[in-house]
């Protein structure tokens, strides 16, 4: 290809787009899917335009934010942080044995490995908010329901990620330790764990960040914290207060995000 591309008519014609019956069919199906999706979700440009003044009006009601409300947000913020911290700590501890049992190369037996995998899939297959709704019914309104929901989901995710990390370890050191007469759990502790630890810490940090953000969403279903304050103020039309809560929320997330980033860099 030293002479650069040589264009000839035959090649151009071969590369040109041709409408075949198959392509036509795919296009028609795609258009049909889009159309029904638009209908199904009740999308309407007209309603967006006619509703626009209401959105502007809503924003106007949100400004200026109610700065006096700030001092009453202190406790909800602390509660949200507490939900984030405790759910992450408990989940990361529970995820450890799960990951160990769900990793093909260290799991004692397929009879153990398969159900644990399935359990982890169920844990993360149902989103936090659904778990929270279920546990609000079980343990009542308040942060505890949110904590359980976050723990379950997070065990599912960290457990799965960690199991994959365990499966990806270099098997060489494990073999060497088995050859030296180390029992199964010692092989794991000394051969695999040092390889997995940095990843584990990084997952835990990421999910601490994630759980704090999710704790806010869970507030909407009554699980306490800033999310609940936000939800309460929107549903009772205190929009200036809702605006204040949102500002606090964004600041909180930014701070945690930065802090996690800093910790991750320190560890790895």
């Amino acid at each position, binding site marked *: 290809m030293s002479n650069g591309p040589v264009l000839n008519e035959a090649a151009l014609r071969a590369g040109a787009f041709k409408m075949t019956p198959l392509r036509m069919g795919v296009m028609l199906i795609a258009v049909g899917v889009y159309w029904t999706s638009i209908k199904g979700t009740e999308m309407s440009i007209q309603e967006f335009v006619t509703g626009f003044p209401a959105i502007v009006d809503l924003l106007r009601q949100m400004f200026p934010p109610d700065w006096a409300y700030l001092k009453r947000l202190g406790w909800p913020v602390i509660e949200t942080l507490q939900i984030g911290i405790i759910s992450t700590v408990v989940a990361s501890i529970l995820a450890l044995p799960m990951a160990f049992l769900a990793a093909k190369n260290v799991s004692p037996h397929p009879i153990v490995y398969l159900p644990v995998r399935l359990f982890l899939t169920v844990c993360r297959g149902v989103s936090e908010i659904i778990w929270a709704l279920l546990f609000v019914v079980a343990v009542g309104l308040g942060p505890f329901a949110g904590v359980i929901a976050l723990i379950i989901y997070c065990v599912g995710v960290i457990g799965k990620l960690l199991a994959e990390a365990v499966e990806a370890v270099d098997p060489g050191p494990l073999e060497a330790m088995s050859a030296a007469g*180390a029992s199964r759990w010692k092989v794991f502790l000394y051969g695999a764990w040092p390889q997995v630890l940095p990843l584990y810490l990084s997952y835990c940090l990421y999910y601490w960040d994630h759980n704090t953000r999710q704790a806010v969403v869970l507030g909407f279903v009554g699980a306490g914290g800033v999310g609940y304050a936000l939800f309460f103020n929107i549903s009772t039309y205190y929009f200036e207060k809702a605006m204040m809560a949102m500002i606090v929320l964004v600041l909180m997330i930014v701070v945690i995000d930065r802090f996690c980033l800093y910790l991750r860099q320190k560890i790895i």
Partner: protein
Amino acid sequence: MNIEADQTTMVEVRNLTKAYGSSAPAIEDISLSFKKGEFIVLLGPSGVGKSTLLRCLNFLVRPTSGIVKINGQELGALSKKGLLQARHHIGMIFQEFNLVNRMSVLMNVMCGRLGTLGTWRALTYNFSPEDHEAAVRALVRAGLEDQELYLRRADTLSGGQKQRVAIARMLIQEPKVILADEPIASLDVMMRAQIMDLIKDIAQRDGLTVVMSLHQLDVAKNYADRIIALAQGQVTFDGPPNELTDAVIERVFNKPADEIDEEQTVEITEAPAE
């Protein structure tokens, strides 16, 4: 213990077969016995079952059928715990050294003592002072005198140094038998001789039986007391190096003898020396 057995027999293998799945067996009906202090080289190109045979000797690979006896102990008859104890006295080194990269040199060596480490100490990563001292002695014996290296992460070492750490890890087990799986294949030519000399020296001083897989003919001839050549999972030659004639070599490697050494000089895999 079999009283009738020759007092000096260290490793005994009878009718050993290992098949993976339904494919042709990796090794088939092999019977051998190695004496105390014997330096044995399993010779042959890769994929002839050297590695499988070696791993059957400490049951890292469980044979499909046949008997393996180490120092009179039949491995297949042992309990899980008994097998771990037996393995503790069988040292093993590997082509890729198999160190934990993120752990210190000293820790890696002490891992050779995991078999006897108490539960609480194991859980807290807390080896005893004796283990520390034994690790240092083993490292010095393996040719790493520079104490500055001991607390460095294993992946900061050169290939030759890594194999020395792996040898120290094996020494700390106080083994009676050394299994070595292509221990010089990842090293450069200079380092190969040093590591081979080291293993030979240790084996001679302590009277250890060495079973080493190799594909380098010249190295095998220089160091082995006895060469066992494998092809298609079966023993095709068993005798001292001087009986290994060109005709036998051609049969084992499936090509003329003078071409084999040429090949060896080409495949230098790792450059940095100590």
